[in-house]
């Protein structure tokens, strides 16, 4: 926009002077006159001018002062006089240190008016096509940095990248220089006439050109040569025309200058403005450094490497593979990937990290679910075991509070689980542990249990597990066995007693009467054969009587009841001493005469059996028998100094005698131990309680004050002693 305003000012034919910021009066300041072909802001040369000045300033050792003048805007005819006058007046006092005409028209103008304006000033003809120059016109003060455009090559390039092209619209204006080029191009393009149809824009206004370019037939291309003044006489700026053309054209646009790339052209072998301005600046410096301008004449610059606009290639669907070798594609838009590569990578990384996290969380979750499932299963299995267990199981914490109970415990105690959980375990279980303790049900009844306790430490917390086994049935069975054994023993003893009594009361008495009767004969007096025979009969009757008495006594020690255990034992030992070679030492302390019948009989029989064993096996010199009260019972010991035996052998081959002794003791709830070693005699240690304690749980009555129990035990005690 700014440029089009400037363009309009130039239309008025004004010359613009531009001063550099440096002081114009400085002695060392060099003055450079830039002579533009068209308006400063027009055409391709502004890009050149900018690059040139930039480079010149950079390389110059002294400050430079620029003066710029433009020929009138492209004109239809020659009217150079105003410009000549202006320049004359401007540089009247001092001619510039360097004159740089830029482009063909300016160069032509400068050559034409050189003698009039600056006959001795060095001049650099820049950016001028070689075709505008004739070496004869150049003086020794003239340096040249020319170009050599090659439009034919540009057309060939169009054919290369778009082989189907049949029509080429040539954008070209109607100024003098453009007319020059119209002719030149016309000649140049002759060689394509069989392949291409050229439509020339020099007869059209720009508006008409636009119209034509928007309706080109298929397989067309637009060649943008030069347009500074259209046929209607309107000056044009390259940037604007290219922009409008690009907007409307239905065919790709090709150009000639590198400055056009990016403004809408596809590309091609373009003249590099950067190289040109750099070379021109280098030449200018040489001249300013007082090198002879004549020697500063560079070979004309040819169109540089092919440059293309990536966006246009895409727009017209031109395969990059078709581009000539060495082509450079510019304005390549980064692909989405290139543009967002890092975002994508970062995003992908985040996604990956999240995926890993999620995956590991899921795996963790799965593992946890599995563990939970297993835990649940094992818990269920465990609780099934617990619930179906026959034993009551109670978990108790270290303060004695019940934490859980199983079904068996509920059933056993008659309490619901809720009635036990949270309560002190001692309200349910007795204090003691062991085989025979009594527990109390909810209804108050008591039952024997076997109680075990195990301890676990979980997380520094002690948990006790009580195993409660209801022993009622077992105790009952045991009691039945005991009772049965006792009954058997009693029956046996009763039978023996009956036999003994029979013998004693009947046979013995009858024998006694016989003896009494037969004994009345005085054998001292009657020495007859009959008397002797009678005596012998009497004697035999007496022996028979004694034997039967002894037999009866063996069967049932009547004395035991009559004299008490102590005396019965004394009698027994006395007899033993008399009959056996073994001396018996008997020691009896504080043993009451009246003892429970079973107890007395038991100890008596055991002693009998023990003494019999001594006589049979021990070959002992002495036997010590002792009976004394101990705790709540009687303790009987029988020790001999005989041959003894291995204690283990008794278990292997239990003798009937020892077995019956054990059984008798056991039936009364007593204990019997035998200690023996070969050569060291045998010691028998027996303890039998006064009262029978084979009732279940009665041993632990102290823990449970049961009126039932005590009265029952008391009753038994009284009946036992009665």
């Amino acid at each position: 926009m700014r440029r089009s305003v400037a363009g309009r000012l130039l239309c008025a034919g004004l010359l613009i002077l531009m001063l550099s910021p440096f002081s114009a009066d400085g002695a060392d300041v060099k003055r450079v006159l830039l002579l533009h072909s068209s308006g400063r802001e027009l055409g391709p040369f502004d890009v050149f001018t900018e690059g040139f000045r930039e480079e010149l300033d950079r390389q110059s050792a002294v400050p430079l002062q620029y003066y710029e003048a433009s020929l009138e805007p492209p004109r239809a005819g020659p009217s150079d006089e105003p410009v000549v006058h202006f320049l004359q007046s401007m540089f009247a006092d001092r001619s510039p240190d360097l004159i740089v005409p830029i482009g063909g028209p300016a160069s032509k103008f400068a050559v034409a008016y050189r003698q009039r304006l600056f006959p001795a000033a060095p001049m650099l003809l820049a950016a001028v096509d070689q075709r505008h120059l004739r070496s004869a016109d150049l003086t020794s003060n003239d340096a040249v940095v020319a170009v050599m455009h090659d439009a034919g090559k540009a057309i060939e390039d169009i054919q290369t990248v778009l082989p189907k092209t049949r029509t080429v619209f040539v954008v070209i204006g109607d100024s003098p220089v453009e007319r020059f080029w119209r002719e030149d191009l016309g000649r140049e393009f002759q060689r394509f006439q069989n392949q291409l149809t050229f439509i020339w824009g020099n007869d059209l206004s720009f508006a008409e050109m636009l119209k034509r370019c928007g309706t080109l037939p298929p397989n067309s291309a637009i060649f943008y040569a030069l347009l500074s003044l259209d046929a209607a006489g309107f000056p044009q700026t390259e940037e604007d025309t290219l922009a409008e053309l690009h907007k409307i054209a239905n065919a790709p646009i090709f150009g000639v200058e590198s400055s056009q790339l990016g403004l809408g052209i596809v590309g091609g072998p373009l003249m590099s403005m950067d190289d040109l301005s750099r070379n021109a600046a280098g030449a200018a410096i040489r001249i300013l450094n007082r090198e002879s301008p004549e020697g500063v004449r560079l070979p004309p610059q040819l169109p540089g490497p092919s440059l293309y606009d990536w966006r246009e290639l895409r727009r017209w669907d031109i395969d990059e593979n078709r581009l000539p070798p060495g082509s450079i594609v510019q304005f390549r838009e980064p692909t989405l990937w290139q543009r967002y590569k890092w975002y994508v990578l970062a995003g992908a990384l985040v996604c990956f990290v999240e995926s890993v996290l999620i995956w590991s969380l899921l795996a963790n979750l799965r593992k946890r679910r599995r563990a939970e499932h297993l835990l649940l299963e094992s818990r269920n299995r465990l609780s099934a075991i617990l619930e179906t267990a026959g034993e009551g199981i109670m978990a108790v914490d270290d303060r004695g509070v019940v934490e859980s109970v199983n079904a068996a415990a509920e059933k056993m105690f008659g309490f619901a689980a809720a009635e036990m959980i949270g309560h002190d375990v001692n309200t349910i279980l007795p204090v003691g542990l062991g085989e025979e303790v009594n527990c109390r049900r909810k209804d108050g009844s008591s039952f024997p249990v076997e109680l075990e306790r195990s301890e676990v430490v979980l997380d520094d917390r002690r948990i006790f597990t009580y195993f409660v086994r209801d022993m009622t049935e077992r105790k009952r069975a045991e009691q039945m066995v005991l009772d049965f054994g006792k009954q058997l023993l009693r029956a046996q003893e009763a039978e023996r007693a009956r036999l003994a009594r029979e013998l004693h009361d009947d046979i013995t008495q009858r024998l006694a009467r016989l003896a009494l009767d037969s004994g009345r004969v005085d054998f001292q007096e009657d020495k007859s054969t009959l008397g002797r025979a009678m005596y012998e009969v009497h004697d035999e009757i007496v022996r028979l009587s004694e034997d039967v008495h002894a037999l009866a006594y063996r069967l049932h020690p009547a004395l035991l009841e009559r004299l008490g255990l102590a005396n019965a034992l004394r009698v027994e030992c006395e007899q033993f001493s008399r009959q056996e070679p073994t001396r018996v030492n008997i020691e009896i302390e504080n043993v009451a005469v009246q003892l429970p019948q079973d107890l007395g009989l038991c100890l008596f029989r055991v002693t009998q059996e023990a003494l019999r064993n001594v006589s049979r096996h021990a070959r002992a010199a002495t036997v010590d028998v002792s009976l004394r009260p101990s705790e709540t019972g009687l303790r009987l010991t029988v020790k001999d100094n005989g041959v003894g035996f291995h204690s283990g052998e008794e278990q292997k081959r239990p003798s009937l005698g020892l077995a019956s002794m054990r059984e008798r003791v056991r039936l009364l709830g007593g204990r019997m131990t035998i200690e023996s070693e070969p050569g060291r005699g045998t010691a028998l240690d027996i303890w039998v309680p006064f009262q029978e304690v084979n009732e279940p749980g009665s041993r632990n009555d102290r823990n449970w004050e049961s009126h039932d129990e005590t009265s029952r035990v008391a009753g038994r005690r009284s009946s036992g002693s009665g």
Partner: protein
Amino acid sequence: VLLADDHRGVAEALKAILSEEFEVVGAVEDGLALLEAAVSLEPDVIVADISMPKLDGFNALVRLKANNPDIKVVFITMHHEPLVIDMALAAGAFGFVLKHSARELIPAVRAAMEGKTYVSQTLTRKSVPLP
């Protein structure tokens, strides 16, 4: 003499023997009857069995002694164990005669009447152990 034996046959034999020299004032068959008869009949000597129903000879002796410390009792028994003899004598019996030693009965009662103690002469015999 008061006779106490629960076996009638033995009692008759004993009565026959004792009647040769003493007057048998009565014969009882158990310990309690003996206590009553001892009070009612006031015998000089009581000849008693040890093994008797209701109250045995020992206990009867203890009770008789409690009533009448001078009562004289001769035991006639099948028990020949020395301990039994010792106990009987310790309890205050004046005589201890084995049942089948009829010859010793008269001397024993006689000795008792005289305030002497008599122990059967045949008490040295061994009893035969049963298998």
